């Protein structure tokens, strides 16, 4: 009797040990990044400094824009061609994505869930984003942004190594993506209710937390990079 119970004990302890060893191994296998608090503090401080710098720059840009607008306005008021040109310029800027805009629309948040319940890591693919943009456009969206990057005619959405590049900004595909669109909220949201739509497909695959929120005041900022044209020439 004693023999059996001691063997049982050894067995249980071995099992516990085995479990711990595998756990430890798994724990070691997951990448560990150690950052000291000081490093983090430096980052926070740097971010604050940069924010201040940005705000100042924004103020300056606004001021200059205002003065230029005044001059242009004064010229436009006396010159018919100028006033027409100014009007066209303002209209085109809105359509092309070169102004900050707001209006009714929807905000889609896709959060990949990566916890123990998932068998495989969940992440967003650049093709999902392309599909979402295409469906928003077919539902009549007038302005779209992904994670704050304005979607314009030449916007690139592509895989760059482990990250997704949008307008040359890198994003981690396992982090949440926020897609904003301005247009008729009901139609924009309705476009994703079709059984074959990309959102429904993602829901079926699982591993994502998807929220679509309608709003009367979606804000989308302008395209904020400089695009070069090397090959294109205007023709007339």
């Amino acid at each position, binding site marked *: 009797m004693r023999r059996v119970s001691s063997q049982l004990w050894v067995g249980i302890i071995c099992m516990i040990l085995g479990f711990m060893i595998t756990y430890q191994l798994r724990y070691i296998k997951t990448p560990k990044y150690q950052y000291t608090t000081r490093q983090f503090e430096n980052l926070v401080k740097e971010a604050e400094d940069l924010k201040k710098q940005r705000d100042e720059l924004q103020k300056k840009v606004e001021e200059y824009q205002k003065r230029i607008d005044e001059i242009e306005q004064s010229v436009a008021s006396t010159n018919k061609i*100028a006033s027409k040109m100014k009007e066209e310029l303002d209209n085109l800027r809105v359509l*092309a994505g070169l102004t900050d805009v*707001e209006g009714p629309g929807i905000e889609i948040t896709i959060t990949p869930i990566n916890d123990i319940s998932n068998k495989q890591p969940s992440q967003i693919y650049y093709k999902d984003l392309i599909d979402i943009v295409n469906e928003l456009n077919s539902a009549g969206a007038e302005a779209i942004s992904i994670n704050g990057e304005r979607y314009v005619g030449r916007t690139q959405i592509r895989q760059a190594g482990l990250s997704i590049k949008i307008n040359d900004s890198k994003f981690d595909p396992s982090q949440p993506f926020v897609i904003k669109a301005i247009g008729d909220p009901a139609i924009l949201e309705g476009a994703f209710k079709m059984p074959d739509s990309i959102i429904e497909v993602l829901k079926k695959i699982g591993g994502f937390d998807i929220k679509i929120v309608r709003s009367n005041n979606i804000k989308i900022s302008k395209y904020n990079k400089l695009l070069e044209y090397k090959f294109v020439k205007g023709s007339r």
Partner: protein
Amino acid sequence: MKFNIKDIFLLTLGILCGVVLTSFIITFPFKPTLILTYVEFQKKTLELTQLKDEIKSLENDLTLLKNKLEEYQNSSKVNQDVLNLMKKELDYVKLFSGYEDVEGPGLKIIIDDNRNYSFNDDNILDYITHNSDILYVIFDLKNAGAEAISVNGKRIISTSEITCEGPVIKVNGEYIVPPFEILAIGDPDALYFAMTMPESKIKELQYRQLYVRMTKEKKIYINGFKKNIIPKYIRITK
């Protein structure tokens, strides 16, 4: 006292267990905070790069505006100068928005359905060009640096959609049918190279036995977006 080998074995096991447990207890409480800081760290670095980008573009804006203002202020004939500058800006915005007819070197792609099929072929859907095929080819081109793209004469701009409407495809609200002619202006070699990469959409279409022909062109003409859009929902943020 008499030790037998089993007791000693049990003892060492117990000690080992204890060591492992304590090492766990020591490392475990730190683990959650470590993960938290890592995520936060990542977020902060992302925020930093975004801020840096923003600052860069703002600085760019600022120098542009400064130059403009200086030109305005230093010129004796303000009217003419303002006009010229506005014209220049309008040209850029027109180019950017895709409202302007453009030309330049680039790539011409023709895609057509495979018409050599028998009716009892299971892969019949593979022989048809779908809207998603066109969509991904366009993004492959854009991602390879194409500066202007059109499909069957429909210019691709920020609001362009490519949808399936049963037997036809709709681009910019207008119907198009095969054969599809995709024009792209950019570096012809770079575009061609990107299209022949193993993971490109064109390769898949070729594998599906669709008719695909690509030619590098010295001069491609792409017409601008012609419809006049009047925004219904967007307002300029003040």
